[in-house]
């Protein structure tokens, strides 16, 4: 039995994964334990959890694989400083002492940290290093249901590469070509995130959500000035407009001048200009991704595509790839960001370095991405008693019947069930649920529960067999990574007055028979729910369908703005008591807000950090 621990850390979204004889046993992000969103620190808690799940001690692990090669990263850093000197001195003075003092000795640092978890861990040579983009590629290909595929990885930056194209066949991956730093789609998108006043590496979803409110008025300007795009999808950024290479900001003054407006302050209100900028950058990204896809399909003539890297979380772009039918099959790693690197590093070592066989099945090997901690009824009851919560214990059947009844009556429900999801999406185990038929649900969930901007859309979770009845797609989307349009017969046509509305004014129009999950452009980020991977969530939606005729629920992550998704019962109860959620359902326990002790209320809205 070979046990491999994969680790990603020190940039953002640190995580740990354990695989045993090639099977993914457990994976979790550190932020869920430390409650620091995108926590980059060494994943002590995540490692302890995956070890617990595997029932092995650290000293019994055969290999520990870190998700990137630190010395290659250092080499890139030195080359960047040389090519830009004397600019970048401040940044050099800040980063060099850190590199020379500790980062360069990362193997030793990892070893020392592992020793803190288990003093018996003594074999320095067990620690290996995978390339950043290889880790992404491995996370996308090895769990996929394909024997052969093109693998596209797109993110900010790893060691040198920012974009790679690889071919995966059986148990091997070969990187064919790449684009190097500073030319990066991830950083390009992040530069606009920064310009729009959102947090880099966090607010990119907001840009994507804001885009449909605007018009791509600046698309040509971006393509003419900021980026040189070739027919094969390769690109080069005009670095006169970007400052991230050696500076402390993402963009230069020239960037703001080009668009005629200064960087938006985070507390400044969003205007039509900001929506048009979001729409324009989204359109540019989609064009680049589509060009890359068409060109690599033409070049390698393979029907399957796997994608990973932070840009793969841009579900609107993913939806366009599907719609264009460039590839027969598409599979996207649900933990596409750096957290998934821990999974890729472990699987990569198993197949590529140890040359272990890969058995391909019809379904993927991610187990629905339900790879995190689970709490049984006894543990939940003990925890709820400790929290002085008032609860009702129900049978399975009562849980589904009563929860669906309350959802029908527009109550909002915190749904805490089974194993926690790995990756940024809540897929029905740590979710807040609502009624998609309600016109007020989107606004209420955003403002009263998530404490976030009212424009942000919500995703529908739909039972898999029903997807083509409600949306223009027949594709499975178990990881909420694809966007499709609501079916024409469910849409409500806008009248002439409504058609003239701009920007955020469009928000209040009822656009379909499921208004809470229909974005202003009639799109929705779909999660198909499968009885094989999440039977409890599947049964709940079915019960809701029996009451309302609608096989869909609003599904958003169980957290508030600026906070990671809840991990434990304590987190769930704290979030429940700190927001306007009506009901909390933890496995077979149901809690009503109206019955809880008022002294336990903890007003979250006052402590919200910007995300």
């Amino acid at each position: 039995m070979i046990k491999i621990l994969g680790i990603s850390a020190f940039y953002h979204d640190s995580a740990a994964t354990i695989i045993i004889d090639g099977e993914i046993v457990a994976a979790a992000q550190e932020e869920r334990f430390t409650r620091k969103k995108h926590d980059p620190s060494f994943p002590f808690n995540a490692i302890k959890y995956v070890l617990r799940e595997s029932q092995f001690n650290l000293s019994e692990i055969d290999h520990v694989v870190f998700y990137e090669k630190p010395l290659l990263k250092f080499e890139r850093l030195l080359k960047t400083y040389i090519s830009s000197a004397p600019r970048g001195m401040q940044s050099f003075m800040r980063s060099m002492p850190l590199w020379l003092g500790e980062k360069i000795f990362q193997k030793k640092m990892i070893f020392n940290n592992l020793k803190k978890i288990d003093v018996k861990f003594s074999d320095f040579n067990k620690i290996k290093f995978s390339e950043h983009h290889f880790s992404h590629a491995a996370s996308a290909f090895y769990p996929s249901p394909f024997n052969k595929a093109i693998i596209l990885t797109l993110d900010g930056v790893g060691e040198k590469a920012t974009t790679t194209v690889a071919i995966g066949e059986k148990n091997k991956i070969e990187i064919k070509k790449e684009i190097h730093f500073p030319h990066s789609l991830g950083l390009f998108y992040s530069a606009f995130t920064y310009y729009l006043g959102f947090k880099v590496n966090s607010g990119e979803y907001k840009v994507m959500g804001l885009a449909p409110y605007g018009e791509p008025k600046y698309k040509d300007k971006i393509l003419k000035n900021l980026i040189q795009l070739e027919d094969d999808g390769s690109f080069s950024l005009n670095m006169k407009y970007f400052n991230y290479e050696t500076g402390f900001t993402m963009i230069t003054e020239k960037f703001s001048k080009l668009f005629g407006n200064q960087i938006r302050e985070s507390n400044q209100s969003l205007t039509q200009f900001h929506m048009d900028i979001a729409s324009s950058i989204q359109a540019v990204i989609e064009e680049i991704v589509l060009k890359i896809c068409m060109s690599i399909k033409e070049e390698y003539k393979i029907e399957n595509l796997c994608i990973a890297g932070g840009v793969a979380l841009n579900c609107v772009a993913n939806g366009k790839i599907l719609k264009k039918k460039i590839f027969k099959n598409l599979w996207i790693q649900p933990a596409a960001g750096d957290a998934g690197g821990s999974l890729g590093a472990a699987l990569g070592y198993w197949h590529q370095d140890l040359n272990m066989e890969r058995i391909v099945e019809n379904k993927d090997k991610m187990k629905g991405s339900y790879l995190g901690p689970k709490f049984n009824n006894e543990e939940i009851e003990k925890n709820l008693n400790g929290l002085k919560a008032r609860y009702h214990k129900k049978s399975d059947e009562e849980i589904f019947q009563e929860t669906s009844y309350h959802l029908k009556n527009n109550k909002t429900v915190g749904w805490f069930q089974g194993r926690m999801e790995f990756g940024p999406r809540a897929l029905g185990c740590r979710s807040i649920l609502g009624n998609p038929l309600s016109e007020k649900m989107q606004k209420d969930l955003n403002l009263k529960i998530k404490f976030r901007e009212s424009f942000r859309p919500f995703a529908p979770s739909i039972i898999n067999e029903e997807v083509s009845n409600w949306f223009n797609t027949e594709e499975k989307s178990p990881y909420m990574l694809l966007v499709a349009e609501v079916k024409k017969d469910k849409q409500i046509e806008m009248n002439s007055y409504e058609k003239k509305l701009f920007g955020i004014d469009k928000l209040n129009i009822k656009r379909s028979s499921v208004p809470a999950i229909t974005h202003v452009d009639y799109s929705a980020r779909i999660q198909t729910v499968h009885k094989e991977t999440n039977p409890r969530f599947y049964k709940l939606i079915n019960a809701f369908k029996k009451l309302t005729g609608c096989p869909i629920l609003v599904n958003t992550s169980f957290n508030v703005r600026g906070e990671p998704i809840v991990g434990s019962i304590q987190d769930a109860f704290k979030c429940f008591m700190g927001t306007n959620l009506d009901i909390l359902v933890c496995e077979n326990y149901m809690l009503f807000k109206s019955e809880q002790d008022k002294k336990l209320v903890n007003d979250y809205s006052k402590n919200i950090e910007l995300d």
Partner: protein
Amino acid sequence: MTSRLTNKFKKTILIPFSFLLFILVFTPLGFLSFIIKKFKKTSTKRTFWIKRTKKINSMEKQF
């Protein structure tokens, strides 16, 4: 980073060393690279893809 450098070591050794390194090595190399770029013929290539010729090193290595 989990372990922080001691301030004394950072202030007395690493920061002055980094400063000298930048002034004496990186700045001249930066100018040299600037001059080379100036005289280099503008590329007419129609792709920015870089073919991967080197295989990925074994995972035993940090580079």
